[in-house]
Each structure stands twice: as C-alpha cells, then as structure tokens.
C-alpha cells in the first residue's frame, strides 16, 4: 500500500505545479483569453488540492462553480468587451511590472516568515466527519443565517447584473 | 396567466402530433430509388435529345435528307448530309449528327420534319467526360438500336 502513497504524493506535486503554472499563465499572458484559461487550469489544480484535504465534494463544487460558471462568465466578458492590443501590451511595459514584482516578493517573504513562526495546535477532539450529510446539517441548522444571506446576495447579484447589463441597451434604443 | 397555461398545453399537444407524424413516416415504405442499382421507367412524354424514328414496316428511318431540320435549328447544331445513289429514289442519308452542347431542346426540328422522321429520345443519363462525348451521331444510334 506504500506504493499508493507515493503515487498520491507524485499526483500532489502534479496538482501543485498545475496550480502555479495556471497562475503564472494567468498573470503573464498578453491575451486575456489565455489568462482566463490559465485561471481555469489553476482552479482545477486547486480542486485537486481540495481532494487531498479530504473533501472530494468541495473539489467537485470547485470544478462545477469555478470552471463551469465563473470562468465561462469571464470568457463571455472577454469576448464582449474587446481589449485593444496596445492596452494588453501596456500591461508588460514600464516600471509597473518591476514594482509589482518587488511588492509581491516582499509580501511573500513576510507571509512566509509568519507561517514559519506560527504554531497551530491541532484540535484536541473532533466532532462530526467530512461527509456531505454532516455539511448539509451544519449548513441548515448551525449556519442557517449565513446560508440565507448568501442566497440573498446571489439574488441581488442576479437582479443587479440584469439591471446593469440592460441599462445601456435601452438608452441606445432611444 | 390563462394564456400561459393554455399555450403550454396546446404547444405540448402539437409537439406530440409532430412526433406521431414522423413515427408514421418512419415505418412507411421508402419512396426513393437506389439510382444506379435500379431505375424507374421514364415517361414517354420526356423530351430528351432528338432521335430518328424507326419505321415499323421497313425497319429503316424515314429521313429524306431534305435538310429542313438543319435550316430550322436556331443553334445550328444539326448536320444532315445525303447523296444520290444509283437505283434509289431520292437522297440517301449519310450523315446525321447533333452537337448536343449547343442544342437548346426547342424541338423546332421535330416540328418541321415533313416525314415525321424525328422524335425525342428517352435518354436522360447525359453525363460525359469530354465535350466530344456530346457530339451524337444520330444515324449510328439508330443502327445500334436494332
């Protein structure tokens, strides 16, 4: 059975590399379409990591919501709003890139040090398990208010998106 | 609100009717013909290119080589040649060709023929590889039809 552990470890590295490569592609590519695909690849990698964190349910939800809905929505945005080439290339000119890289490296070092210093004690005892049934029960009893709030947010988002996207169209019609 | 539901019901019913029509069509016999394998009888009224009529009694054509069809043809695609021979009354037809690439199938030659020696053929497979394939020798076709 130790073989399986090694296979799993190799796959873990694969998912990690997938995540980082997708991220790199998303921020460094000149075409927005490539950036969105990089995001999709990266999110698939994160879904794999969720699998390692013991929750295949969330991994599938990640694929379903992020890759199936959010990425597709962003791709629609890319297609609808045409980004001119010089704008896309301006991303990679000037000293912005260097400054951004410097700031990010600084932030990374700070957080890395913080993580290295911190001590996280595991919980003494665990209640419940990772099953979907338990998630559902917690969602509907313990975190009912948050759940309702999320649904209100989603409803507001739907209505707001419709109003925002429709607004211009009627003005043009006049 | 009432039309919302009635539209749903009438629409759904029409969809079911449509399905009924196609399933009936599916189990009814096919009507198309597997063309190169089988052919259907062509109607006698079909007006293909011209052909010489075979006389039922003598078994020969009735053309007297008068050249009316050649003169009448608006496209000038018919060539008729005849020659005098010893012991035969009138001219003997030696050449009767049709350049089908120019023919407009108007039928003036058939109308004008004094002896009713011309008629439309039933030929409809009219594909060829070269332009010369459409220079028909009508006289030879008559002989081959024996």
């Amino acid at each position, binding site marked *: 059975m130790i073989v399986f552990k090694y296979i799993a470890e190799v796959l873990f590295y694969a998912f990690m590399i997938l995540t980082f490569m997708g991220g790199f592609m998303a921020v460094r590519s000149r075409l927005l379409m490539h950036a969105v695909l990089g995001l999709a690849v990266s999110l698939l990698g994160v879904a794999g990591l969720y699998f390692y964190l013991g929750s295949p349910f969330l991994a599938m939800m990640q694929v379903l919501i992020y890759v199936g809905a959010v990425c597709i929505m962003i791709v629609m945005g890319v297609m609808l709003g045409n980004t001119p080439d010089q704008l896309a290339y301006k991303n990679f000119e000037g000293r912005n890139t260097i400054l951004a890289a410097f700031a990010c490296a600084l932030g990374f070092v700070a957080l890395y040090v913080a993580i290295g210093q911190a001590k996280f004690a595991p919980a003494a005892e665990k209640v419940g398990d990772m099953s979907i049934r338990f998630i559902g029960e917690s969602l509907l009893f313990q975190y009912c208010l948050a759940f309702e709030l999320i649904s209100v947010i989603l409803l507001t988002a739907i209505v707001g998106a419709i109003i925002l996207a429709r607004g211009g169209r009627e003005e043009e019609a006049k | 609100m009432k039309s919302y539901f009635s539209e749903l019901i009438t629409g759904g019913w029409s969809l079911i009717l449509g399905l009924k029509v196609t399933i009936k*069509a599916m189990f009814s016999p096919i009507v198309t013909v597997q063309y190169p394998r089988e052919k259907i009888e062509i109607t006698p009224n079909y007006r293909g290119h011209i052909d010489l009529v075979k006389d039922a009694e003598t078994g020969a054509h009735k053309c007297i080589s008068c050249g009316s069809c050649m003169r009448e043809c608006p496209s000038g695609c018919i060539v008729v040649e005849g020659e005098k021979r010893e012991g035969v009354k009138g001219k003997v037809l030696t050449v009767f060709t049709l350049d089908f690439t120019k023919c407009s199938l108007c039928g003036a030659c058939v109308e004008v023929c004094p002896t009713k020696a011309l008629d439309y053929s039933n030929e409809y497979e009219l594909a060829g590889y070269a332009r010369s394939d459409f220079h028909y020798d009508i006289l030879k076709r008559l002989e081959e039809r024996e």
Partner: protein
Amino acid sequence: MEILHSILPELIRIIVCAVCGAVIVFGNALVMGYAERKLAGHIMLRPGPMEVGFHGVLQLIIDGLKLMGKQLVVPQQANKPLYMLAPILSFAPVFVPLLVIPFSDKLQGFDINIGLLIILAFASINVLAILVGGWSSNNKYSLFGAFRSVAQNVAYEIPMLISLLAVVFMTNTFSLKEIAAAQSPVWFVIVQPVAFLIYIVAMVAETNRAPFDLPEAESELTAGFHTEYSGMAFSLFMLAEYANMFIVCSVATVFFLGGSSGIPLPYFEYSGAVWFLVKVYALMFFLVWIRWTYPRTRFDQLMNFCWKYMIPFSLVNLLITVVMVKLI
C-alpha cells in the same frame, strides 16, 4: 513481488475501466452515428446509407478512416495552441463520468457518494471547450456559435440541476447506485413526471441537439463553433457530442427509469447492464426522433422557454417534492 501483489487488483481494475470507457465512447459513436443517419433516412422516406456493407453498416468505419486521413487545417488567423486544445478539452472529460455510471449492480467503475456531482462538474467543462474552440477559430460564425452555446448551456443547466435535485431529495443521496436502487418498486418517472419532462428537455439543450442545436445551426452559422475544424479535430468534437448524449441518457436512466432494473436474467448483477443499455438507447432513439421532427427554435424562444416555463416549473416541482417528502 509483494508490492505487485498488493497493487495488481487495483491496477487491473483501473485498466479495465479505461478500456471499457474507450470501448463505450467509440462504440457508442459508431452505433449512434449509423443509427442517426439510418433513422433520419427512414423518417424522410429514404433508406439512408446503403452502399458500404449490408445496409451500410460499415459506413461509419469508412467515415472514421476518412476523417483520420484528412488534413488538419489550421486557419492562418487562428490562435493555434487554443485551436488545437479545444477538441481535446472537449473530448477528454467525457471519460470521467463513465466511471461512476452504474451499468448494473456490479458493473460500475467506482461507487462514489458524489457521483452526480462528478458527472455535472465534468459535463460543464464541455462548454468551456466549445467556447475556446469558437473563439480561437477567429471566425464570426464560430464565435456566434460559441456564444449561443454558452448562453444556452448556462440557462438550461439550472432546470436540469433542479429537476435532478427533486430526485436527490427523495433518495437522500448523490450516489448513482443508491438512487438506482431506491426505485425498485416504482420508477421515479411515475413519481416525478414533471421532473422527468424537464430533464428531457434540458438534456436535449445541454447536448446541443435539435431542436436546440443553435450553436451549430447549419442554415445560419454554417457549422457553428466547429466551422473551421477538419479531420481528427472535428471527429473528436463529434465523439464528444455522442459520448455526452450517452452520459445524459444514462443519468436519465439512473434517475428516472430505474437503472438496470428489469425482467431478471441469469447473473443479474452483471446482465442487468442489458436492460440499462436498452433504456439508454431507447432515450437516444427519442433524441434522434425529435431531432428529425422539430424545426430549430429561434434564440429568443429558446431563452423564453427556459426562463418562463422550465425554471418556474422545476422550482414548483422541487417545492412540492420537499413538502411531500416531509409529510410522508
């Protein structure tokens, strides 16, 4: 040696699953490609393919060989990496859902308690593939096809999910095997007729087939999102379409038609797959039947039908189901 002994059964299982998945995907494409053309012919009172083999049974094999031999043309203005990626992105995810479909009690790749979510998650990647393919072709027809596909798929995913949720509420599980087992006396098509109807309509729309084949509407968009594709790339799109048809029909069978239940045969744990396939192909026949019956809908009709009829009905159905489950 010990290592080999421990991983061998699992390895064999994985290999068998992969081989069976490939057989299902390619075999299904062959069968459905032939059946579709034959049925289309007979509905139009003509015989369909007749030349290659007895009644043209070898036609699809010849077509496949032809497509393999064809040149893969990449348009000059196309975005080449994405253009090549899209067919693979469309084709690769169809294998995963096949692993969790319970063909019979024992013929199942893996019984996972989130089987439904796996199917839905990997089915949604197909939309991304269509979008990428349509965009990267750099052709206005392809782009329009991709746009339509996305609007349609996103809209129809909602009633599809909600109608399936009604069944999930009744069975209290996401595992396809348990859902199939839960309908041993009565199939859910009798208990949940509205959900079944909604699922069937949404299923047609999700697989981009007529009367909802707007992404590839021939008369308006030449071939929609795969206008520029040729050869193997095109056939990968076709294989993915037929495999998706198989998957959605399998889900319908598992959720509403009792899975592999039927008249008992010997070795029923395995031979139940016969009944399963019979049901799946009956549904596929229905898909082909309606494809050659109905004209294509207009886009506003398509959207109106989804938002004005399907979603309200599926929500009301869900509500009634919840109340009934609570009461009983």
